[in-house]
């Protein structure tokens, strides 16, 4: 009887081991209408947007945290290019590889196009963040006129007069200021963004004040 406890413990361990084996070999029961499987081509883009992407980007592409960009009303061409850039690792800024490389690695072209279409069709909610009027004015000047002394072109020349984007040039109106600042810094300091040559040239001579004021202005654009 001295061995009885060890038999009990060994039996329990066997149960746990069997559970582990069962877990490993269990067939993947699919529930595609509410799946969070980012490797299953059968899962529709809308399902992925709701079940997975909404966790950070919000159900309608309006993210609560400025850590994550708003995707609502973004141009579909830009969204497709970014998702493919994450998938191929051509876009490799920290926000990209930390959060997006993994989730995009098995997406099909069709799913990527579906996601782009989903977010392009959403409505961007205007930011309610307050900002000093002086900063907004300085940002507006950069946005509309660029910084002529440094040969920095106006944002409007590519992103449109009201920042709504155009094809592969993303919408920036209403984007989180923190996200815009961080991306401008990525362009200014690195080559981590695929297809970012134009923005690298634009951002190269922007001062920190320029970057912060234009980002603040851009964020406010939806409500002005």
């Amino acid at each position, binding site marked *: 009887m001295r*061995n009885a406890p060890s038999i009990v413990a060994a039996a329990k*361990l066997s149960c746990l081991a069997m559970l582990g084996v069962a877990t490993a070999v269990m067939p993947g029961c699919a529930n595609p209408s*509410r799946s969070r499987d980012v490797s299953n081509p059968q899962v529709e883009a809308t399902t992925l947007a709701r079940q997975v992407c909404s966790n950070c980007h919000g159900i309608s592409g309006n993210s609560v945290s400025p850590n994550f960009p708003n995707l609502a009303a973004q141009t579909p061409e830009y969204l497709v290019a970014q998702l493919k850039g994450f998938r191929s690792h051509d876009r490799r800024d920290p926000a990209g590889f930390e959060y997006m490389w993994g989730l995009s690695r098995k997406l099909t072209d069709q799913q990527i196009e579906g996601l782009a279409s989903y977010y392009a069709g959403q409505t961007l909610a205007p930011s309610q963040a307050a900002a000093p009027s002086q900063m907004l004015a300085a940002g507006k000047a950069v946005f509309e006129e660029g910084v002529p002394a440094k040969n920095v072109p106006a944002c409007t020349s590519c992103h449109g007069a009201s920042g709504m984007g155009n094809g592969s040039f993303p919408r920036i109106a209403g984007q989180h200021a923190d996200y815009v600042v961080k991306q401008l810094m990525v362009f200014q300091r690195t080559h981590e963004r695929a297809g970012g040559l134009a923005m690298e040239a634009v951002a190269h001579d922007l001062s920190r004040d320029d970057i912060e004021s234009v980002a603040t202005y851009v964020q406010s654009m939806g409500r002005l």
Partner: protein
Amino acid sequence: MNGTRCSANVFSVLLSGLLGPLALVLAAIWPGQAMAIPLFNRQTGQNCVACHAGGQFPELTPYGRLFKMTGYTIGERTVPVSVMALASYVKAANTSKSDDPSADFARNESAIFATASLFLGGKVTDNIGGFVQITYDNYATRGDDGKFHGHTQADNIDLRYADRFIDERRDLIVGVSVNNNPSVSDPWNTAPAWMQYVPVPSPSAYQFIDGASPYPGYASGGNIAGITAYAFWNRTIYAEIGGYGTSKGWSSFMSSGLDNASTTKLQGINPYWRLAWNHEWGPHSLMVGTAGMNAKIYDDPLNTSDPSTLHHFRNWSIDSQYQYLLDPHAVTAQLVYARQRHRYPDFLAGQPSAFVDAQGNPLPNSGDEDTTNLVRAKLSYVYEARYGGSLSFFNLSGNTNTALQTSGYDPTSLTITSDPTAQAPSTRVNGTLAGNPGTRGFTYELFWTPIQYMRLGAQYTAYSRFNGASDNYDGFGRNARDNNALFVYLWTAY
């Protein structure tokens, strides 16, 4: 003891024989992608900071909480195995106030391989996932010869079925968790199972580091079997209710590695509940909640036939957690108040004490119930998911009860003696002369995460009160501050 050793050997073989090569294979397959619970990293392909605030464990981000609540099912199925190991070193402030320091502070000032964990789990189906931790403690027990013995047993187990109904109008996550530790299913890190410093070696290796400080745990402890059902509505209201019983029969794997005499035995189904309000705005998130559990625990795990031997526990807590997460900053603030009422079985209540007072007069009989209150607060900051630090405060208070007294005057010699042949021997270092649990102090920590699968940290725990007193708490002249301890660790996972 025999059973413990045997099972330890079985698992040691598993760990060393099976997992060593497996870890090497994993390392070869997934170079450079190792994170906390790396199997989840492989499943989602995401960096650890996606789910853990500033990459510190176990604190979850809002996304990490949703990952957990949706049953660990985001991502794709992968090899469901991870490993973790901890090496550490401790220096206690004063080891001289003990008549046998080599016994009381055996591992002091020596670097040790402390613990290793094996994780199983991850996504199984679109609705089912799990998290199973099996831990090997190299210093789990100590034999009569003074040597430590390793032991392997089930740690946290959380197996889930979850579904999410979400569209533009509503977001409802519902799920069921089968788990072995009340509140291990909770998504916030103020829950008793999660409000802890990680990593910590076992108290038998090091007695006075933060891991041995009072935490708001449930009386039932872990390694029991429970089922809870939960719902999270519009990312605002979280509710969970469940019941726990003894781990036996189909659920015996919940206490794997524990022999019968070491397994907590509960009477019937013991209720657990949790309610929390959550709000997220900008980079901020705030939770205010409450939780509780009633448990009826048999005094002797080997005798569950007599209901008159049951201890009755009522645990109740309120907790709050605030987070500010905006790269490169991660701030987490936590506050918990936990109250426990413990009613003793009749045969243990009103009993005379073995000790006497200094004049030889008998002490009051033991009480029939104890109440303890614990306040614990923790503030942490991590920069770039690389450099971090934290400060925490703990204050455990409670009533005095001669039943709790483990040091006192021996009736024969009218001295406080640790001589085991005395009529009433006292416990040095870990004893309490006051019969009071009062313990208060701070823990400070600094850590560095040079690469994501490795963390180097230093923790200092400073006590202003220990086992009911600031000075001479054990009756042998030891003061609370003598237990202040520096803990240095190297943590790795793959």
